[in-house]
């Protein structure tokens, strides 16, 4: 990890891609996360689960990444579902009304399974 402590790792489960994000998502690290999502779109992978389990911090620059892609993802029949968000990060999502726009699940598997049933 670099000094700004952010990591994104990808794991594919058939047509669903899980992006596990770790550390601090701010204006400095957001481009790295953007790049990971862009890579999925280039490969026509529109079903995504973002696993927040190890994310400690998010600023509006990080929230902006979700807003920047959600329209394109949904137009292509996919979604960005969120999982395992800690209370601190959830509070920031909640403060801005983001839970109205994104499905948030307690576990990664629950979020993956949701793609299978819809």
């Amino acid at each position, binding site marked *: 990890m670099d000094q700004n402590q952010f990591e994104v790792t990808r794991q594919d489960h058939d047509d669903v891609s899980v992006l596990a994000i770790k550390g601090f998502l701010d*204006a400095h690290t957001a481009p790295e996360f953007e790049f990971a999502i862009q890579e999925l779109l280039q490969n026509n992978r529109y079903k995504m689960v973002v696993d927040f389990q190890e994310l400690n911090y998010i600023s509006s620059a990080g929230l902006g990444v979700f*807003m920047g892609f959600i329209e394109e993802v949904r137009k292509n029949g996919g979604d960005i579902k969120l999982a395992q968000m800690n209370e601190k990060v959830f*509070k920031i999502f909640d403060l*801005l009304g983001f839970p109205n726009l994104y499905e948030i699940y307690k576990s990664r598997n629950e979020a993956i399974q949701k793609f299978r049933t819809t």
Partner: protein
Amino acid sequence: MKSTRVETKPYKNSEQLKSKARETTILGHHAKKYRLITPSESANLELIRDFIGKLAYRAGFNGDHVSKIQLAADEACTNVVHHAYEDIPAGPIDVEIVVNRDKFQITVSDKGVGFDPEKFAQPDMVEYLSKFKKGGLGIHLIHTLMDEVTFKIEPLRKNSVKMIKYVHKPESADKLRQQEIILRETKKRR
């Protein structure tokens, strides 16, 4: 015999005294002042958050409030990094913190192009989310997270946002009093 001449500058000294007195009045007797000046680069956001976080903990805030103060400062500094020095050579981010017994004050300043803070104060979040807009939430977040927010815009000279968080917010005291009254009333009824 060699004489030593001591020059006194009463006017300047009295001005200095007055200025010192003004400072004490403004800051309060127990105020402590801290300052961090960094280049306007996103790589410094973490450093700024850490600096503010340590001081906020020391000032007596709990983890929840420390996170809010850090995020508000991050948003103000991110605005400087992204917008203040657009099309002009990058200058500094100047973060000044004044810690008083009752409040924690952060002032983030830049020498950039400035902006109209009113434009971003209260976005319509329903419209924002329904149209999948991106960005422009920083100032709204700052208003939501802090108790008092004041902007002072002087393009290319000094643009600043002053953010205050009270250690014991008056509303919280009111809430506690209300809870006490409810408890007393409940006991009476028993």
